[in-house]
């Protein structure tokens, strides 16, 4: 076997009050995809930032091709051939693809001060075609590109540095299934070209397809490094969370007593939702699967009154309602937990407590005047019940981890009388531990007789939790199945095509 291109030994990094990394070892070989996993706060991104020169570790050594080095800045890292593609894009929307790829390192023309545009576009084109994405025009402004295309531009930008090591941080989070497939092909190409890849991700079901080895971190500590083909999902989860998780999707047996929510041939104006008929009964978890863009979120927005229904009817507990606004639907007992936690779910500048009571405020204090103590108490109760990790209810919410933020979004609705809840991607971007807590909670809510409609792109969870499953394809329901009726493969197929 070759020598590692990068080897980090005994890396420790402290932040005020937290030992973010505690003597972590990590090595990386050329042409290898080395996955780093762990719950939020396990130290994944701290480790990758130490490699990238964004943080300077207090202890430990980093060797590149056998030589001990000190990486003090991202410029140093680039000098050693290390670059990164972040989850949140760093592209400038109003510049062209080529300008973004060569941002701040433009090719100079012979005329002083002028940029050699022609050469820049040629070089950019070369990189894009090496990625098999020549259909992206180097002259297009980045803002006109889709998420997957932006991702490709980011990768092209990374490649333009001719790196030996690329670090990916949750690269597939914004991509749809189809785009992910294309993305993995690119990863394989990079591997074949001998580039070493560090891959930070939560998404366990992707590991088989692209990973070679996995390093597991927990609470900043190094737990171990294993080969992808030698470990099962359960064993991996156990390494990550430090406890046994034989029954991830445990459901309580309960009766489904009567209809809670039903739609009758509802359509939106844009044709994203077409004649959808679904029913959710009390005490039932109903899954809604489909590709990104299949119209799942749009359907939820229609039912919740955010967008106008063009045609069709909505029935709540058997009674026909004309959906006007979220205020009205909340009064009728419906709640929606939106997929975009930061954009739609939370007021990031405000405290945990204020976010928790944001929906229920007017019910708590119908006489206009509020009582801060009562709000703190209510928040404390939710914090305890949902095990939200926050030093106090007055903590500004943006400082909480993704999993804890999601719990706050759930807490908002637990304080209302809602007995029909729509969970849109409730576990996106959060760690395994928090996911399982949310599954348990959803099961508990269903057992209490609440009706739950769950939208999810993670097939395993939507199959694992749902009593019934609808599949949406291009705005139409193409399949309805009971628990255990269809295999994961069959469901995957039905998501892709109408005729399955």
């Amino acid at each position, binding site marked *: 076997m070759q020598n590692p291109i990068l080897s980090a030994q005994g890396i420790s990094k402290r932040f005020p009050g937290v030992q973010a990394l505690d003597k972590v070892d990590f090595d990386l070989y050329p042409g290898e995809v080395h996955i780093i996993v762990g719950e939020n706060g396990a130290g994944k991104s701290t480790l990758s930032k130490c490699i990238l020169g964004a943080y300077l570790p207090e202890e430990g050594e980093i060797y590149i091709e056998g030589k001990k080095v000190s990486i003090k800045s991202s410029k140093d890292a680039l000098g050693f051939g290390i670059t990164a593609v972040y989850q949140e894009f760093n592209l400038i929307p109003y510049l062209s693809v080529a300008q973004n790829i060569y941002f701040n390192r433009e090719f100079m023309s012979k005329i002083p001060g002028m940029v050699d545009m022609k050469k820049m576009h040629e070089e950019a084109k070369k990189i894009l075609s090496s990625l098999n994405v020549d259909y992206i025009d180097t002259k297009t402004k980045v803002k006109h590109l889709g998420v997957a295309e932006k991702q490709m531009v980011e990768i092209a930008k990374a490649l333009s540095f001719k790196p030996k090591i690329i670090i990916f941080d949750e690269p597939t989070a914004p991509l749809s299934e189809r785009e992910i497939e294309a993305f993995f092909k690119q990863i394989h190409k990079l591997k074949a070209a001998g580039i070493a890849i560090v891959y930070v991700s939560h998404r366990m079901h992707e590991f088989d397809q692209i990973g070679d080895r996995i390093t597991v971190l927990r609470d900043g500590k190094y737990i171990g490094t294993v080969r992808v083909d030698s470990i099962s999902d359960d064993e991996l989860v156990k390494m990550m969370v430090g406890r046994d998780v034989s029954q991830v999707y445990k459901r309580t047996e309960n009766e489904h007593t009567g209809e809670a929510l039903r739609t009758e041939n509802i359509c939106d104006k844009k044709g994203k939702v077409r004649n959808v008929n679904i029913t959710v009964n009390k005490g039932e978890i109903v899954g809604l699967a489909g590709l990104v863009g299949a119209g799942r979120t749009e359907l939820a927005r229609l039912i919740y009154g955010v967008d106008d229904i063009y045609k069709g009817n909505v029935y709540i507990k058997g009674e026909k309602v004309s959906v006007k*606004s*979220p205020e009205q639907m909340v009064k009728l007992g419906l709640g929606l937990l939106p997929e975009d936690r930061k954009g*739609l779910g939370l*007021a990031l500048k405000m405290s945990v407590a204020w976010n928790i009571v944001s929906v229920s405020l007017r019910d708590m*204090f119908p006489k206009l005047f509020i009582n801060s103590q009562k709000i703190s108490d209510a928040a404390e109760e939710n914090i305890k019940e949902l095990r939200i990790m926050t030093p106090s209810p007055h903590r500004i919410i943006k400082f909480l981890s993704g999993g804890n933020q999601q719990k706050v979004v759930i807490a908002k609705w637990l304080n209302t009388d809602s007995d029909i809840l729509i969970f849109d991607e409730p576990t996106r971007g959060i760690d395994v531990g928090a996911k399982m807590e949310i599954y348990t909670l959803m099961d508990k809510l269903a057992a209490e007789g609440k009706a739950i409609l769950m939208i999810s792109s993670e097939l395993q969870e939507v199959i694992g939790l749902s009593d019934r499953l609808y599949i949406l394809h291009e705005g139409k329901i193409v399949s309805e199945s009971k628990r255990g009726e269809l295999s994961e493969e069959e469901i995957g197929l039905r998501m892709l095509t109408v005729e399955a």
Partner: protein
Amino acid sequence: MGKVIKRLQNSQGLLSLMGLFILVLLSSVFSDRFLRVDNIITILRQSSILLILSVGLTGVVITRGVDLSISAIAAFVGCTCAQLLKAGVPIFFVFIIGIILGGIIGLFNGFLVGKLKLPPFVATYGTMMVVSGLSLIMMQGAVIYGLPENFTWYGVGYIGPIPVPVVAAVIIVGIFLVLLKKTTFGREIYLIGSNHNAAVYSAIPVKKRIYTMYSICGMTAGVAGLLLTARLNAAEVAMGDTFGLQTVAAVVIGGTSLLGGEGGPVGTVIGALILTIVVNIMNLLGISSYAQPVVIGVVIISTVYLDVVSKQNRVN
């Protein structure tokens, strides 16, 4: 006590409070007349109308909006009410009409911003032009003066040693404090300013709240217009011009972010006091009124700069 300190640290107004303190300290060093009771009362009286306008504006800014029309509303209400007084309408009704008039113009702003989704800056600038134009049409270049004494009392009179406009400002600030901090309405205003979309998804009637906030802001502008008319014992079209963007400056100096979702009336009190004291001390020192705007401008820029820096530090 610890709780109080902690709350102060978290509040946006801490820095402006320190600024105010330093300003008072320096001013009392520069001029021995500064800390005299009559001068302090003068400062309070001079700041009171700016404060009433700015406090109303504070609520709007918290929704991530702005209202540039308030000084024009004040002038319009002042002119209208002066005419009504001249026509012999009883003072009580004049006040009611003035406040309602302000509220209606505010509601119009709320409609432009909440329903038609116009950018607040442009929408309220447009309203400002319209309202100023209406004043011009109504007044035809005239100045109305010589108003009834029991009306001018509201501008020049005293309750004990305290000028009436100061009492009015204190009451209005008190109302806003309760409204913004202690009611569901106020908290929803903060939520809307912090994240408009999340407020929609949290089933908050966002449009209604925006209508209400702009209306209330218009009503305080109406009150300011009435008190200003009483104090000047006259009304003319340009009477609100001195306040112009000073109202926005007072709000921002007080630590209320133009990005919405944070700040509050207490900061605005400090902001209005800072602006007034700067002018007052320059007058005491005999600095030419031509040079005064330069100093005011510098004060505005530096206070807001300090606020931005301190916010960045807090984030890190």
